[in-house]
Structures are given as structure tokens and as C-alpha cells.
């Protein structure tokens, strides 16, 4: 798990709030969804279609596609490539296979 060197709350910065499944997550504006999850104690963002194994962000640079989540109803969003927005709804993804959906 990851922690912030200087949490935004501690430095009086503005924070962004969004939902991940049933949880409320706060983040710093400009964070990617994946960074926000990893610094909020959430380590799993999808399960594989083959064996249902839990997976978490792995490369953070858009290569591995382990961080796929559903954002505001759109599946197959790379959590490490998309920035947090106030009020967004993020869901764990149960195994997506195709890139065109």
C-alpha cells in the first residue's frame, strides 16, 4: 500500500471526492484514479475473466491493462490514465475481454 509524502488535507489543498464501488475516496486534483485508489488503501480494481483472480494496477503507465475499471458506466477505462473528477462513479470490473465495447 502507498501513502502520500504530504497528504492534501494536511496542506490545506482542495480535494476531489469520488465513489469507488460502495466507498468514498478523496484525492488530490490531477491524481489518476489508480493513484487515488492505491493511496486510499484500495489494492484491487478488477478480477480476471479466466480464473477470477484479483488484480491491481501494475505498470501505472498504460501498458498492462491490469487497472481496468468502469467509470460512469464506461467499461475498460485504464484507471492509471484517467484523472479523478469530483463526483465520478468508479466500479471494479469483472473481466472485460474486448477493446471495442
Amino acid at each position: 500500500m502507498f501513502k502520500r509524502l504530504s497528504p492534501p488535507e494536511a496542506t490545506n489543498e482542495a480535494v476531489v471526492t469520488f465513489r469507488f464501488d460502495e466507498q468514498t475516496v478523496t484525492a488530490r486534483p490531477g491524481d489518476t484514479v489508480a493513484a487515488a485508489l492505491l493511496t486510499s488503501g484500495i489494492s484491487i480494481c478488477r478480477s480476471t475473466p479466466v480464473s477470477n483472480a484479483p488484480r491491481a494496477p501494475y505498470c501505472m503507465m498504460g501498458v498492462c491493462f491490469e487497472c481496468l475499471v468502469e467509470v460512469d458506466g464506461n467499461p475498460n477505462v485504464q484507471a492509471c490514465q484517467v484523472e479523478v473528477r469530483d463526483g465520478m462513479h468508479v466500479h471494479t470490473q469483472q473481466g472485460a475481454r474486448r477493446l471495442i465495447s
Partner: protein
Amino acid sequence: MITHDLVILGTGPAGMAAATMALEHGITPVVIDEQPAAGGQIYRALERTPVRDRQILGEDYWSGESLIKGLKDPQIDYRPATTVWQLTRQREIGLLHDDKAEMICARHIILATGAMERPMPIPGWTLPGVMTAGSGQILLKSAGAVPQAPVVLAGCGPLLLLLATQYLRAGVEIAAILDTTPRDRYRAALKHVPGALRNASTLLKGVGLLRELRRAGVRHIKGVSALRAEGSGQLERVLWKQQGDDNWQTLETPTLLLHQGVIPNTQITRAVDCHHEWDEQQLAWKPRLDEWLGTDIPGIAVAGDGGGIVGAKAAGMQGQLAGLGAALALGKLTLENSTQRAQPIRKALARDTAIRPFLDVLYRPAKQWRLPDDDTLACRCEEVTGGEVRRMAEMGCRGPNQTKSFTRCGMGPCQGRMCGITVSELLADANQQSVEETGYYRLRPPFKPITLGQLAKAAEEG
């Protein structure tokens, strides 16, 4: 469809340097990057990083400021947070920005899309809690985030040591560095030291990193010969063996960061089917390039680590060369002028890359780190093991496109980015043929996720 003179893809050192050079010769480029901020990998999030203590990320990081300033020239059409999901041989480019797809066309294209980390398929590498060193560094640069509990770093290469020192300066506790550099590599690399001395400053920086780690008393375990990650549903411990010792040793940790060098990210050059070749020294595929870094497709060039690993400084120089190449192709410079202009850049480039043979030999990952054993996953997406790929070879599969249709290996969401090089090498090894002969996956667009709705919108407005 709008046609632009020059489209540059990527805002790492290569893309930014190419843009400035092109502008200098009267070309106003469109510059695209999927990241919300400029900088590429090395200078990631430079303008907005929460890490304000400049000493933590180091001077090399902050030296990117001037390139970013150049990119921000109002004449450059810089489009951040824009993903390229399609590229054709006719130089049509599919963009996705803010949920909106768009097609544009270019007379000339410079691909400066950089490198990715070489996969390190050890047992347990898919467990949550196991990530790459690069991902750890991305979290540090862009979110000021670091491992909560003592972290284990494993593998080899300059980036692993760089991250270790950056963590050290940020006060992160490092449980151990498990160094997989085989002991005999040091001797093999020795003969390349004289060459490397032409770029003494980089060599000395590497030595400096090692010294910093040693002084701080970081546990640096050398000659690691086997490694596995274990835990139920989540990483709990890392186990390793050292050369000459048959016993497993253990460390409890929730975070393991793996790294064994970087390789060109060839997803886009593959998607347009540029000619690629296997580089035996770097153990990686790269597109074949001419003296202006042009591929075999007219009007498409590649600059920076995407064309073969050269390092950040040399990537910038290649960007300059590709910018000159664009000016030449677009008729803004004569061959004579561009050749003249390129000469000192080529000289500096040769000096800077003189260190590569040394680094390539020293940090060449041994076979056991590149070829997963029978029970370990090669393809993370479709969960195909090394053993299954070997079995396919026994059944007569000569290349990755055949194993793909039998096992779905490489057909998951990452489209073979993570397993491609592993499967090529596994099949080559099992069939006792060269990697070049074995080949690579044939790719189909789109190379980034896109929805039918987004596509339909693009078609309507096309």
C-alpha cells in the same frame, strides 16, 4: 479530415525536442500525448509534482524544465490528455480526447512514444502488491506517493537503483534490494568500460547512486538467482535464493517492485506494420530506422527510446534529428543544410550512447528471468503459463500468431504488450530457432480502448 504538416506523438524528451526543432524551421507541429502533463517518463508531472524538495527526484529530473518551456510555445498545437488509438500507413491518426474520437491526417509523423519496462515473469508476479519499479516512480513523481511499509526492490538496471535512491531521499524504508545481475556480468562488462568512458558523466552518476545506497546501509543482496512472490489474494512475502546457496530466504512485505530494464514500446510501430528487427544486444524488438530515423513507411519516423533504448539525453538528440528530418521531408530544408545542421548532433549522440554496450552487457537479464517456468504466467491477461506456450511449440507452433489462436495468449486487453516479447523468446528457445525467425504478434487496431459510441461520433463528424 484535416491534414497537418507534422504530428508528433509523445512529449518525452524526444517528442519535445522534435517539436522545438521543427518550429525553428517554420513548421508548426501538432503534439499529442495521453498524459495530462508534458514530460514523458523521465520528466513525468514535472510542472505539477507534489514532490517539492528538489533533491528527492534529483537534478536530472528538474533539467526537463527547459524542454517543457519550449513545448509551451504558443505556435505549437500541444494536445495533452489525448490518446492515439489508431494509426494507418496513410498517416491517418485516430485521437480520443474527453470521450470524443477524431481522425486527423499528417504529411509527416514522428512517433516518440518511448519505452516500457521489460516484463519480469516470476512466480506470483500477478499478485496485488507486486508492481514495477517504474510504477513506483510514477506514483512518486505524479502523486507524491510512496510505499507505506518497508518495500522490496528486485531485479537489475539503472532505473531500479535510481528509484532506490529517490526513495531513500524521501525517507522511504527499503527492506532490501534483491539484485539479479549475474555475478559474471561484471567481468563481461569490463571490456566495455573504455568505450563507456566517452560518456563518463553518466557512468559516474551510476557509481554515485551505488555509493549513496551503500552509505545509507541499504540491504543490497547481490547474485539473486531465484525469486518468488507469495500471498493469498495479496502479496505477503518475497522469497529468494542467492547464487551458490540452495536455501530460500524470506522477507515479509506488502510491496514488491520489479524491474529489469526497459525495452522499446513497439505497439504503434507494430500496428502500422513497420519493419522490425530483433536487437540481440538489447534483447528487444525495434523498428528498423534510416539515418533520419525514418521507418520503412514513407513519412513515419521514430525518435527516442521507442526506436531502441538510448536513454533520455540521447532521446532528446534523436528528437532534434527527427525534427530536421521532418524539415527536410516537408521541403523546409535542403539536404545539404539539414546534413550540416545534423552533424554536431550526430557527434554528440555517438558520444552519449557510447555507454550503451556497457549497460546492455552489465544488465542483460539472464534467461531464467526472461523465460517463465512451466507454472508461471507468461500472459497475465489470459492467464497462459510458460508451460502452455512450450507445449504449443511441441505441437508444432513456430510463431506467436499460432499460439495466439490456440491459447488466446496475447488476445487480452493489453494486446500482447506484456507477454509479446516473452512469447517470442519462449517459442524461439523451445523451437531452437532465432527470435527474428519466430516473429511477433500481428496487431489489429484499435491499440487503445475505445467504445462504439465514441467511434460512431467520430464517423458522423469525419
